[in-house]
């Protein structure tokens, strides 16, 4: 039987989970623009908010969050993994900085 890569990965994880070695964690990654980088999306939203009559609004920033459910041995290892994910895919260090919050899933 032929399995795709994602199926293999899922199967792999399930095997580890059943054996009890892997705990599951919920992680929240918040990605923000660095200071000094223009935020055209926020500026445009602010304009529209003003047009709707809410003229007291002074600033709008766009922030992105990614919720991840991830298996790992402990919190530190999970944090390291997510750090890698951020550096390699979720953020570009030229314009972004990020924060990671990890909690064990009950």
């Amino acid at each position: 039987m032929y399995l795709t890569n994602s199926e293999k990965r899922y199967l792999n994880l399930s095997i580890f989970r059943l054996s009890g070695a892997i705990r599951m964690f919920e992680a929240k990654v918040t990605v923000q623009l660095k200071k000094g980088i223009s935020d055209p999306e926020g500026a445009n939203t602010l304009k529209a908010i003003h047009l709707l009559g809410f003229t007291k609004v002074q600033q709008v920033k766009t922030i992105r969050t990614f919720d991840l459910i991830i298996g790992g041995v402990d919190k530190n290892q999970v944090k390291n993994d997510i750090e890698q994910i951020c550096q390699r895919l979720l953020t570009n260090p030229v314009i972004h900085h990020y924060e990671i919050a990890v909690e064990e899933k009950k």
Partner: protein
Amino acid sequence: MIASYIINVTFKKTRYTGDAFIIRPKAETMKLKDINIAIIRIEGTNCEQESYDAFKRLGANPEFVHLKQLLHIDCIADETREILDYHCLMIPGGFSAGDYIRAGAIFAARIKSQLQRQLVEFVKQDRPILGVCNGFQVLIELGLLPGFDEIIHPIPDACLYLNDSNRFECRPTLLKHENRGTCVFTAKIQKNEIRLIPSAHAEGKLLFPLEKQEQYLNKLEKHDQIVFRYVDPEGNYAGYPWNPNGSPMNVAGICNPQGTVFGMMPHPERTYYRHQHSDWTGTQLGQNIGDGRAIFESVLAYLSKKF
């Protein structure tokens, strides 16, 4: 289920082994039809047909290659390909993987996942890589451009960020050729020549880390890595709308220090013929040569000399 999983792992195909795929340089120049060009596509790429046609019309041997064929995922043995079987790679424009996360980020991550070593080898052998529009974004996200100190930076050194106008800018743009001869893709274009090549992008503003912006731009200039800059019809570096995205120093295209990896935001394949220019009815067609053709001609001339 588990048994089959184990079998799958044990009989995993052997991958790249080293020098098995190196194409040895020949004594005489290579014929155009022997030049293999891979036009890499995944979901959401566009203009690959125009790019294919451009190479084909000039007599080369282009081929559409899906990324999965290079990664050996979900395809039969006959369909699998190796990067090092090709002389030139082209990453076309578009909205790969829906531009999710950032433009080009997912395409770049997929390439990096398995092909990094082969890609480094490819660049080391001075084989050219062209990235147009989304392809440029992929090259930046891959860390292949600007490529100051090493061939692939593990973390990108630059970013193509949202246009200042926060809009998708789609119109003909004028580009001044600034390269002093490093870039192999523009050897047939005179320095300071102005060419009309259309732009169509929402994220084309080249950014470097803010504190190093000046330093990096100077470095680009010093290493002769700036290839095209946006200008107005008089050849002055002008602001919006001549510069559609607000790029610093009006940069439209850059290459790596060796000149073999080249990325540009405008689409040269869209002006292969003169009749594809928006103003062609007001002028003579002549030999019907568009402003973008020289880029494809230059790289083929380089390849036929090199291999």
